[in-house]
C-alpha cells in the first residue's frame, strides 16, 4: 500500500534530516552572502566599468546562467584540487554555489541600479556630486532597498540549487536523504520528509520575500517597482 508509511522510522531519522537541513541552510546563506559581495562588486563594474570590463562581466553572467549548475559544481569539484586548493566538501560546495549565485546576483544588482529613474542621477550631478558619489550616496542605497525582496527570493533559489551538491557528496539534505534511502530501502518516508523540509524553508523565504516587497512598496508608493525576479524567468532549478 502506497500510503502505509512507517511513522516510527520517520520519527527515528528526523534528527538526521533536521541536521542535514541545517547544513543546507548554512551553505546556502554563505553562498548568497558571498555571492552578494561578489555580485555587488562585479555588478557595479558591469554598470560603470570600462566597456571591455562590462563585456567580460556580461560573459561571466551569460556563462553562469547559460550552463546547467551541475557543470559548475563538477568543475569546481575537480578544479580546486588541481590548483592545490584543498577544501572539504562543505566549503567546495560553498565555492561552487557562490559562483552560481554571483552570476544571478550581478544581474539583480544591474537591473536594480538601472531601474532607478534617470532623474535621480541628474539631480545628484546638479548639486555637484561626481559619478562615484552619485552611485554611493544616491543610487546604491535605493537599489539596495529594491534588491532586498529579490535577494530573499534568490536565497530560496539557492537553497533549491544546493540540492545538486549531493552529487559531490556534500552532506546536505538531499545527500542525507539519498543515503537513508539506500541504507534502509525505504523511499516514500524519506522523500516525504526531505520534500517537506525543502517546502518549509523555501516557502518561508518566498513568503518573507513577498512580505518585504509589500513592505517596501508601502513606504514608497511612488517608486514601488522592486525588480521582478521572474521578469526573465531565469531560475536555478
Amino acid at each position, binding site marked *: 500500500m*502506497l500510503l502505509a508509511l512507517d511513522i516510527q522510522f520517520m520519527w527515528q531519522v528526523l534528527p538526521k534530516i533536521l541536521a542535514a537541513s541545517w547544513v543546507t541552510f548554512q551553505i546556502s546563506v554563505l553562498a548568497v552572502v558571498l555571492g552578494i559581495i561578489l555580485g555587488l562588486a562585479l555588478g557595479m563594474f558591469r554598470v560603470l566599468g570600462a566597456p571591455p570590463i562590462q563585456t567580460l562581466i556580461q560573459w561571466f553572467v*551569460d*556563462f553562469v546562467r*547559460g*550552463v*546547467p*549548475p*551541475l*557543470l559548475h559544481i*563538477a*568543475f569546481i569539484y*575537480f*578544479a580546486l584540487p*588541481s590548483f592545490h586548493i584543498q577544501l572539504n566538501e562543505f566549503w567546495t560546495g560553498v565555492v561552487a554555489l557562490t559562483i552560481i549565485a554571483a552570476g544571478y546576483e550581478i544581474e539583480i544588482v544591474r537591473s536594480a541600479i538601472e531601474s532607478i529613474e534617470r532623474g535621480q542621477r541628474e539631480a545628484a550631478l546638479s548639486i555637484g556630486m561626481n559619478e562615484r558619489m552619485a552611485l554611493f550616496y544616491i543610487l546604491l542605497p535605493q537599489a539596495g532597498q529594491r534588491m532586498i525582496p529579490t535577494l530573499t527570493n534568490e536565497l530560496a533559489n539557492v*537553497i*533549491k*540549487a*544546493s*540540492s*545538486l551538491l*549531493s*552529487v559531490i557528496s556534500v552532506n546536505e539534505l*538531499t545527500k542525507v*536523504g*539519498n543515503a537513508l*534511502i539506500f541504507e534502509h530501502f525505504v*523511499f*516514500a518516508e524519506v*522523500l516525504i520528509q*526531505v*520534500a517537506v523540509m*525543502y*517546502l518549509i524553508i*523555501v*516557502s518561508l523565504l*518566498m513568503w518573507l520575500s*513577498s512580505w518585504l*516587497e509589500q513592505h517596501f512598496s508601502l513606504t514608497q508608493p511612488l517608486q514601488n*517597482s*522592486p*525588480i*521582478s525576479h*521572474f*521578469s*526573465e*524567468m*531565469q*531560475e536555478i*532549478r
Partner: protein
Amino acid sequence: MDIEFIVDILPRLLNPLKVTLLVSIISLTLGTLLGVSLGMIWVASTPRSFQRLLLNSYVWFVRGTPIIIQIYIAFFLLPKVGLNLDVFWVGVVALTFNSVGYQIEIVRAAIESINQGQWEAAGSIGMTQRMTFFWIILPQSARRMIPPLTNELSNLIKASSVLSVISLFELTKAGDAIIASSFKFAEVLLLLSVLYFSLIQALSAATKYLETEVFNFDKADFESGKTFGQIY
C-alpha cells in the same frame, strides 16, 4: 588543454546531445499542453474553489522543492504504482511535472496581463464571458506566452542535466562517464559547457528575435515585468 582529445570525444557526445534535446522538447510540449489547460482552469475558477486550491498547491510544491527531489520521486514512485517505464520516460514525466508548475504561472500571468478594458469592450458589444475569453483574451495572451515558453525550453535543457542522477545517458551523464574513464575533467567540462551554452544561446537568440521582431506589438507592457512579479 588536449585539443585532440576534445575532437576525439565530440562524436561520442552527439547521441547524448540528442537525448538532452529530445527529453527537453518532449517535456516542453507535454508541459505546454497541460500547462495551458490547467492555466485556463486556474483563471476560470473562483478564488476559493477546489480547483484553484489544488492547482495552487501543485504550483507551490513544484516551486518549493528542488528538481532533483522531484526526479527521485518519479524514479521511485512510478514503478511502485505499476508503471515500469524506461529511464528516458521517467525523465520526461519528471521534467513535465516540473515544467507544468512553472507554465501554469506563465499562462496565468499572460492572461491576467491583458488590459481589463478588453473584457469591458467585448461585453459592450454583447459578448458573453466565455466568448470574450476565447475570441478576445486568449488570442492576445497566446502571443504573450510565446517568449516565456521559449525561455522555458532553455530552463528545461539546463534542468535535464539533473537526470544524470537517475542514469539517463544524456549530455551530463555521458560527460561524467568520459571523465571517469579518462580523468580529463577540464576538457570534458569545457566541451559540455560549450555544447549546453550554444544550444541555450541559440534558443535565447530565437526568443529575442521573437520578442523584438514578431511580438513587439505590445513590448512596453510586456517588459514592464509586473506580470511575472508575484508568485500567487
